[in-house]
């Protein structure tokens, strides 16, 4: 290493040059500068900077590995410049160097870097030596990094390259199936819907999202990051790994590290783009117009009622429209991004920008995101390092409503009359208006066409980091960050006059909000080694404040609906939104943390962590929580008896740990009794009346509210065989969520005020997680296969009172109760009646012991073709007390399988995800077979009972439905297991020999398919249903209930990545 002149000067020069070259890259053809320095000079570069490039010589050579085989892909850098290349498939290279250059640096992952002095040589051949320490993979842990071998907690790593260029809207979706115990629950397939992440099962009935830390900043959504900017994601799963984030770690922690420029690495411009199309995977079979009418007629006849003339009217019995066909159209996906990364001796940088645009398969649903990221690192002298990260995201999202069981778009398309055209001959939309018998649904295509909504988010996430080496091994580090999101949503609802569900005014809703947080943290890091002891200490202080402020406005009665007039100043009236007019909230966390990592002889490992957290969510006196954790590990593979007995074992480690974590992710201010002053009434003579406000307590207080804690025990085994060609990890864990914050049974006698959470619930998740991988190279062919699986059992251990349950929202216009969660059972179980086939004749009804004392039998309310419900409590009558748990939405196993292979320039990758041992409640089908609704029915209704022996599973049709055949029952519980070919990628990388001629460092072209094949027995549109509903007011979310959610789609994309 040669440094000419004072350090500072060189730094400045390098940095300035970097920036200039960067500018140059952007503005000019990237090929020109190296070939045509004169041109560069003409553009105004001072000769001094370019001087070293003026006199050139070419150096060629070959790089071999330790066994003298050619080593392709080795990076070669002219030290002190930005110039570099890499070896081709035969390990050969050719590079032109300036006369002033003195040294070439050869580097390759897993090998020791070598600096070779030039001293006039024109041919250099070297062999690289494996770097034992570099083989040690480094993983990011909270407030530091650790060698993977020394980690005693449960940590999964996902590399950015695993999901690079997959057509996913965000990193969250990309994580699905990638790591054991990390379950990404997709809530349907709407563009921009990130889904939710569950680490190690359903951790709490409250917000169970893991903490996402982006480059050291605890922050919200990870979907705002361009997945192509991510270098790695580390998932801290057990208490030992995550306790350093005590407060918010109970549901796991995801550490995201974005790509950075490396010091002394050539500046590399990478341009990346893919475009593709998205299509529906399935549509549900529904009745055609004539069959619909004939089945409705049969329903009236079955009831002994006269058939209303509309069902005889032939004008509605010509099949005209398959509404799902009309609604589910082709979508598109596009992604373009570019990055420039590299660095000199003292500064490095990474700048990237991108655009992702996904148009969904339903209507105008669209998700568009612009990204900008700037990361830099600087060394000041030998002891100071500073760095900076900045991320800007602008996103637009306008997904329509597809979760309402009363007006959802897909729900409507399944049910709208198939004998009506999309548009009438006069160009107006067809409608049920004036044909009440067909039900109060609006034409779904009309709904799509008049949709006018946009949700915009602008997010700025930035932090500064600094590090000072105070003494050998002792560093003081600081991190200051802000995360600010400015959101604006706007929707205009036209006045609907010609559809069944009409409105008497048009309405504009505008809301603006800003969310900002400020983080500051300071900590000391001390590393030391003595004899065979190795010790790392981390300890410090962190605080983060969170502010939120919003305002909403509603305007009505716009005299014209011209798009240019859809603004608040044109509204005829401004309607008050009461409490929703606006507001502000503030929360804060304040914490101290510390961790000790100690190892002896590289084989006996101990980690101990402690964190003390204060949270403003709780009243004084309950604010502080204390979260300890420890773990131990034993690296058996370092013991001689293992080395001797099992020489093929390259790594073998067993670990065990325990810790306590906290969750404070619940509503603020629950310790106060709040008065809502915006209840409304009207008084006064005449028209209009006076608008009157009222005030009442809207929340009962719980002054004792405190931390929800999770205690977790983890036992792990990690093994690598044959130089880690086979790698295997196994973890067993028990996670007990204690003092879980629950709304106690919200007795109706309390009224409708919000019930505060109380620390009364207990939940247990326990299970196994395994990850395994195998890689092998045979000549030019190499392949790898990896699999992960988690077997997790979820149980609610304790609720407020014995026998109590957690309630959930009711389904559909019939307001049916489908979900209850009971003690001793998984969360979110389906609840209803057991059935035992269909009564085939009256004799079966008369002799049925289930109905022995049921007055409905003697009253003649049950007839042949009705469902035989099972009298579980044995009282001889079917009543509410006969309901029971019918199935669980919690999967017994979640798994992912990844297989990749490369041959010469080709790469091929398959990625499967699957779940097993899970049930789905097909509520849409329950309603879709019930002819007492006016709507169209599932085609399955053709298999209905219509005479003895015709069906034992689909009951007869009826408009009166006296036996309530379509009450929630096991008839509509289906197996939800699926295995999905999530991604398939075939790529081709153009050989270096070709690329060198055009001065391109790398060029790869690829085709990717997503959601290509799904193996499932589930009869509905899509087995990935996710969560629906919200938690609050004594009601809890539902999982795996089919409301005709936005289905997932199949995507094919073509793309290219080119680096210079």
């Amino acid at each position, binding site marked *: 290493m040669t440094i000419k002149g004072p350090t500072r000067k060189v730094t400045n020069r390098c940095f300035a040059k970097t920036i200039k070259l960067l500018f140059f890259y952007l503005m000019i053809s990237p090929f020109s500068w190296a070939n045509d320095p004169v041109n560069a000079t003409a553009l105004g570069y001072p000769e001094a900077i370019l001087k070293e490039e003026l006199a050139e010589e070419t150096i060629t050579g070959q790089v071999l590995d330790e066994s003298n085989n050619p080593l392709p892909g080795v990076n070669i850098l002219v030290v002190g410049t930005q110039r570099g290349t890499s070896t081709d498939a035969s390990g050969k290279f050719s590079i032109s160097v300036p006369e002033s250059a003195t040294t070439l640096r050869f580097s390759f992952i897993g090998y020791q870097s070598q600096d070779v002095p030039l001293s006039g040589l024109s041919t250099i051949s070297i062999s690289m030596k494996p770097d034992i320490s570099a083989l040690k993979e480094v993983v990011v842990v909270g407030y530091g990094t650790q060698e993977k071998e020394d980690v005693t907690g449960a940590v999964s790593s996902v590399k950015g390259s695993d999901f690079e260029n997959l057509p996913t809207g965000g990193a969250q979706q990309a994580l699905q199936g990638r790591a054991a115990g990390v379950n990404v629950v997709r809530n349907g397939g709407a563009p921009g819907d990130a889904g939710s992440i569950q680490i190690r099962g359903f951790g709490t009935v409250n917000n169970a999202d893991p903490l996402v830390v982006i480059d050291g900043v605890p922050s919200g959504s990870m979907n705002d990051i361009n997945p192509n900017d991510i270098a790695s994601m580390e998932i801290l799963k057990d208490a030992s790994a995550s306790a350093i984030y005590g407060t918010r770690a109970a549901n796991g922690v995801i550490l995201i590290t974005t790509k950075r420029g490396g010091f002394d690495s050539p500046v590399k411009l990478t341009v990346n783009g893919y475009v593709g199309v998205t299509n529906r995977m399935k549509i549900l079979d529904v009745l055609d117009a004539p069959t619909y009418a004939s089945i409705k007629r049969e329903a009236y006849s079955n009831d002994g009622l006269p058939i209303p003339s509309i069902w005889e009217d032939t004008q509605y019995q010509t099949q005209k429209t398959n509404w799902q066909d009309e609604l589910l159209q082709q979508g598109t996906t596009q992604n373009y991004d570019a990055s420039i990364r590299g660095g000199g001796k003292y500064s490095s940088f990474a700048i990237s920008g991108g655009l992702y645009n996904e148009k969904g398969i339903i209507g105008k649903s669209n998700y568009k995101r612009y990204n900008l990221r700037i990361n830099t690192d600087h060394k000041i002298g030998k002891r100071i390092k500073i760095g900076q990260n900045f991320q800007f995201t602008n996103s637009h999202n306008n997904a329509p409503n597809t979760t309402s069981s009363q007006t959802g778009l897909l729900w409507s398309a399944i049910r709208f009359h198939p004998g009506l055209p999309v548009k009438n001959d006069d160009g107006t939309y067809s409608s049920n208006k004036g044909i009440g018998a067909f039900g109060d649904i609006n034409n779904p295509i009309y709904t799509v066409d008049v949709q006018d909504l946009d949700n915009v988010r602008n997010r700025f996430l930035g932090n500064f980091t600094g590090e000072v080496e105070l003494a050998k091994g002792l560093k003081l580090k600081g991190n200051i960050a802000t995360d600010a999101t400015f959101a604006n949503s706007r929707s205009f609802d036209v006045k609907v006059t010609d559809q069944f569900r009409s409105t008497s005014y048009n309405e504009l809703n505008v809301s603006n909000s800003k969310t900002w947080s400020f983080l500051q943290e300071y900590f000391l890091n001390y590393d030391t080694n003595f004899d065979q002891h190795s010790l790392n200490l981390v300890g410090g202080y962190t605080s983060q404040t969170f502010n939120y402020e919003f305002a909403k406005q509603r305007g009505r009665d716009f005299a014209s609906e011209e798009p240019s007039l859809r603004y608040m100043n044109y509204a005829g009236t401004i309607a008050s939104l009461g409490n929703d007019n606006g507001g502000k909230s503030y929360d804060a966390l304040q914490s101290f943390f510390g961790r000790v990592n100690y190892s002896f002889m590289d084989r006996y490992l101990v980690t101990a962590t402690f964190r003390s957290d204060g949270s403003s969510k709780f009243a004084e006196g309950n604010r502080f929580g204390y979260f300890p954790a420890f773990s131990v590990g034993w690296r058996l593979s370092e013991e001689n008896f293992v080395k001797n007995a099992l020489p093929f074992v390259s790594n073998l480690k067993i670990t065990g740990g325990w810790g306590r974590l906290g969750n404070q992710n619940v509503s603020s201010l629950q310790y106060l009794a709040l008065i809502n002053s915006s209840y409304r009434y009207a008084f*006064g003579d005449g028209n209009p009346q006076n608008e009157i406000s009222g005030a009442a307590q809207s929340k009962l207080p719980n002054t004792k509210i405190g931390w929800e804690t999770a205690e977790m025990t983890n036992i792990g085994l990690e093994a690598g065989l044959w130089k880690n060609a086979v790698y295997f990890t196994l973890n067993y864990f028990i996670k007990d969520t204690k003092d879980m914050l629950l709304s106690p049974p919200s007795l109706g006698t309390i009224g409708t005020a919000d019930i505060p959470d109380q620390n009364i619930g207990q939940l247990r998740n326990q299970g196994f997680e395994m990850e395994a991988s195998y890689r092998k190279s045979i000549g030019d062919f190499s392949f790898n296969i990896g699999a992960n699986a988690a077997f997790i059992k979820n149980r609610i251990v304790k609720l407020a009172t014995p026998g109590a349950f957690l309630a959930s929202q009711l389904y559909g216009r019939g307001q049916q109760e489908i979900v209850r969660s009971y003690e001793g059972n998984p969360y979110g179980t389906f609840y209803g009646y057991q059935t035992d086939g269909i009564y085939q004749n009256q004799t079966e009804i008369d002799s049925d012991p289930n109905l022995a004392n049921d007055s409905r039998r003697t009253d003649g309310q049950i007839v042949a073709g009705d469902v035989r419900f099972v009298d579980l409590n044995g009282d001889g009558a079917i009543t509410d007390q006969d309901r029971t748990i019918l199935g669980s939405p919690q999967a017994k196993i979640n798994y992912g399988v990844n297989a990749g292979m490369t041959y010469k320039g080709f790469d091929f990758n398959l990625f499967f995800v699957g779940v097993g041992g899970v049930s789905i409640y097909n509520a849409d089908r329950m309603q879709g077979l019930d002819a007492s609704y006016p709507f169209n029915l599932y085609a399955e209704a053709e298999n209905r009972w219509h005479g003895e022996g015709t069906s034992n599973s689909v009951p007869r049709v009826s408009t009166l439905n006296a036996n309530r055949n379509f009450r929630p029952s096991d008839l509509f519980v289906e197996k939800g297991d699926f295995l999905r070919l999530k991604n398939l990628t075939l790529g081709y990388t153009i050989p270096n020999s070709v690329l060198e001629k055009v001065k391109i460092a790398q060029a790869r072209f690829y085709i990717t398919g997503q959601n290509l094949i799904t193996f499932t027995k589930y009869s509905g549109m899509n087995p990935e249903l996710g969560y629906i509903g919200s938690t609050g007011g004594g009601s809890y979310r539902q999982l795996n209930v089919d409301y005709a959610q936005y289905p997932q789609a199949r995507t094919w994309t073509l793309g290219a990545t080119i680096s210079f």
Partner: protein
Amino acid sequence: MSLLLVMNACKVDLLDTTPYGQVTSQQYWRNGDDVVAATNAVYAPLLEEDGFAHTEYCFDNCSDDMHRAGDHSDETALELFTFDASNSHLLATWATKYEVISRANAVLINAPKVDMDETLRNRSMGEAYFLRGFVYWRLSLIYGEVPILLEEDAINLNFNKPKSSFEEVRAQAEADFLKAAELLPVSHAAAEAGRVTQGSANGFLAKLYVYNENWAKAIEYADKVIGNGAYTLAANFNENFELETENNPEVLFALQYETGWTADNSPAFYHTPQAYGGWGFHEPIEDLVEEFEEGDPRRAYSIYAPGDPVTRGSQGTEPFEADMTRVTGYAFRKYSAYTDAGDMSQSLNAPFLRVADVYLLAAEAKIRSGQNGDVELNMVRARAGLDPIAGATIEDIMHERRVELAGENERHQDLMRWDKGGILDISAHYSIDRGPYKPGRNFVKPKHYYFPLPQREVDLSNGVLVQNPNY
């Protein structure tokens, strides 16, 4: 510098937070304005669809007057008596009704402690007593036996209570109405019209005593209303159902709506035919339409029938057509009003007690106690321009109530009351096939006199709340 930041950040007040834009209950109850606002809030839940705007009307689908006409399967089950205790309407209205009780209790607990104008205090407490009494009254009709929560229960957070007997619930309603009648003024300033009055409380007491078959008291309390010049029949029947005159002296108690301000999903929305912007539930059946006498103008004011001219603001006048309804060809008109532009208005109030009802209650009490009720009955008939009846019988009362109060949530309760009084057999009455939209139904006595308690509440109470018999 870092150290300074640490010191600065360590200030404990980082964790102190403020309920921005909200007050806490400790800061509340400062003055008369707070008491009035808290009293206003007692009225608010009445407007919810789960409170009185929709659910209560669904309970009257059980009558022989109307067809549910919606597509809510739980309403089918209610109308056909095939419901069970998990029927969602039984559940939804429970909490909303107890919310009224809870807010009334808050006023009754705190108003006496506030330094305020005595007249205003009496008015507010009278309103709170009335609304609590009204809810216990409705609970006694719907469920029969329910838990009674009073001020001390609210103070002690004693919510999981066993139910009281039917007589106790009824007595609670009576006691609250009596206190309200004592405290409330006879009338309010024009700007406050719609607040309950002495007449509201006395009117409900008259009704309660008729249900209790306490004829003397029924007549006594009815007289306190119809004998008071402040409470008179509107000159025209339709004034009760029009925006300009909806708070006329005849209306003793009504849900007060103002579009754009109060809750949507009002009775107007549910009853107005879909062709005019509503949802078109609760459609009258032929049997009710035929009950009206020839020439009774109330038929056309109460019900849209095919051919009726309908005027909707600037959209002009068009005839009503049968296919504007969902099924029966008829729609209630009482709950429909239109803006100048001809759109459905959600400002229309929904009456729950009118002076006409009190006249008919007085007439019934007199007839059933062996007296002559012609005067009271004929007041109502005369207002409709119909000939007087001499020597009116209970059958005349039954007829008059059905047409005068059609769709006003009285019929099913009236029929059950008359059944219990031995005047008719409701099981036989409901088993009659009244056409495709009201087939014969199986009313089981005594099971169907009351609806079951919401099964979810029974299950949540951990054994404290016992289900009604027969469910």
